[in-house]
């Protein structure tokens, strides 16, 4: 933690090691710890002034996703984050951080504002997933997430997405298509929660530890896979033990990165952002990098189903 650069991602070494199974489960518990700092806890510490905005101007306001403008290192900044709620009542009110279409549409409204007023955008990801409810589906949950990603790709201002807890499913990625994507040390980023994955793949929700081990949704793994650009350290016992220090460590990464991103021309930034996401994915059969013949895929050319 004494590393002045303040983020593991550029240290190399240990962070890039593959996490073993018990570690994965421990990280999942930490990422979901009910005392973990939530977006408003970071905002309170990073920004002397913050003004929350409300509503999508279409249907409603979604308390599961907070959005607002704040003063950050003497500049205006736009912030979006999943807010889970601390006690039972707030958790219910905030729907456990599961945003509906109204949340993503509020987020898009703030992105418009960020572009208009030339504000950097920071998103703080911490959700078990987008809200699975009939009403959310009727109002276009899928399209809301898709368009939020689309909107982020079109941003002219710099953007950084930070996984600060649980980053699960499209609900997380909906606000995650940024110039830089980073994870705090004890967080997860995954296609599905371990319970959900266990229920589907093992047909037994109780086998979530197996699912966790298989998904390996830790910061270390995601860093290895190129999903995130850096891993931001937390205080020694985890972010929930020292909010101030957790915020300070995040600040170290954030301020430096936004400054760096601002140096790029907007068009270049947008191009690189597209390229960043376009390149993700491992597969076989691609042509080699010098453009010569493909390694796999020769054959008679008949469509496989037609034989």
């Amino acid at each position, binding site marked *: 933690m004494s590393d002045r650069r303040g983020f593991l991602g550029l240290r190399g070494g240990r962070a890039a090691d593959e996490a073993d199974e018990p570690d994965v489960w421990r990280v999942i518990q930490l990422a979901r710890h009910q005392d973990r700092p939530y977006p408003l806890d970071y905002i309170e510490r990073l920004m002397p002034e913050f003004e929350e905005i409300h509503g999508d101007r279409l249907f409603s306001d979604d308390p599961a996703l907070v959005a607002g403008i704040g003063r950050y290192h003497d500049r205006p900044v736009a912030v979006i984050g999943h807010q889970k709620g601390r006690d039972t009542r707030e958790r219910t009110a905030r729907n456990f951080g599961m945003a509906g279409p109204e949340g993503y549409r509020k987020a898009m409204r703030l992105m418009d504002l960020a572009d208009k007023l030339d504000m950097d955008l920071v998103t703080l990801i911490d959700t078990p997933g987008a809200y699975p409810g009939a009403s959310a589906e009727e109002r276009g949950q*899928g399209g809301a997430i*898709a368009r939020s990603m689309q909107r982020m790709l079109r941003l002219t201002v710099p953007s950084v997405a930070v996984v600060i807890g649980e980053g699960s499913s499209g609900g997380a*990625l909906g606000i995650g298509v940024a110039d830089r994507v980073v994870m705090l040390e004890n967080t997860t980023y995954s296609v599905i929660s371990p319970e959900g994955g266990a229920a589907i793949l093992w047909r037994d929700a109780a086998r979530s530890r197996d699912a966790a081990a298989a998904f390996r949704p830790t910061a270390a793994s995601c860093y290895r*896979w190129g999903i995130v650009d850096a891993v931001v350290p937390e205080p020694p016992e985890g972010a929930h033990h020292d909010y101030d220090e957790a915020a300070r460590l995040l600040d170290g990464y954030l301020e430096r990165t936004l400054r760096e991103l601002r140096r790029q021309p907007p068009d270049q930034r947008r191009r690189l952002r597209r390229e960043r*996401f*376009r390149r993700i994915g491992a597969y076989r059969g*691609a042509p080699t990098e010098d453009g010569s013949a493909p*390694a796999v895929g020769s054959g008679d050319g*008949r*469509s496989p189903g037609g034989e």
Partner: protein
Amino acid sequence: MPPHIHISVDRLRRRRQTTQPPASGGEGRACPECGTHFRAEELARNSRVCTSCDYHFPLSAHPRLDHLADDGTWTELWPELRPADPLRFVDLEPYPDRVERAERSGLREAIVIASMRIGGIACLAAVMDFGYLGGSMGAVVGEKLTRAADRAAERALPLIVVTASGGARMQEGVLALMQMAKTIVAVEELRAARVPLIVVLAHPTTGGVWASFASVGDVTYAEPRALIAFSGPRVIEQTTREKLPETFGRAEAQLAHGQVDAVVDRRELPDRLARVLGILRRPAEPEPGAAATWAREGRQRAARAAQALPALSKRLVGRGGPNGDAESTVHEGEDG
């Protein structure tokens, strides 16, 4: 690297077989709605729609292309792309075993790209196949769709996408999730090139596919009674304890909720698509199409952009070593 994709695709293009693929039906089927029994040929003749009750049987990718394309005009692109196993994923069985079994059924991935003509108009099609691992979206789906969009942009061809998917392919973990963003990038390239994207939602279109490229078409059709949802009915019922009606998330309900442009009977789909493509056809212009120019410049820009990428994001990204085995490459690259 994407820029190189364009260079090699033409060599990889395959002529299609015009014989009827067996994936379309087997020996015969009873309609699950009304019980009417059909022989395979009967069903195929009616586009796999029940003649008694209009139930739409699932249609896999190749027969779908036969159905949509003008006779004998479709040609598959990039059939050689195959999933890697970056997570060395094992649930009740190893991921590669699932892939192998799926391939044994005659399919090669959950999406098939083809160039074709519809109503005489040249276009590209990306057709998903629910029969291959539930039409799940992994890296190959993302990559093929991206290549299709690149080519569509480059040649100013409309892109028709037919979806049928349970969502992201869990066995590829968070890398599968990221294909949602990747496909949205592909859609953005189409936008920049001013190329139409027509989406047809077949049963079922759910999860990460609905929450990415499937929901942002310029014109969006759905097949009758197709389930279209981000969260499936079972998940919703478990989470919210609501009892959902039969109609939940079905095409007809999504039309009422403003999420699709029309519910179109499969048998009318080729004509409907031909009409839309006809409407959107660009007038003959003296100057070279902006789209083609854009794509050409785009390729050069992409190559330059790749140079400027931070080293980090080059990891595990559109790669595939000379031996075609990305899986081992990944682990060598990272552990070394």
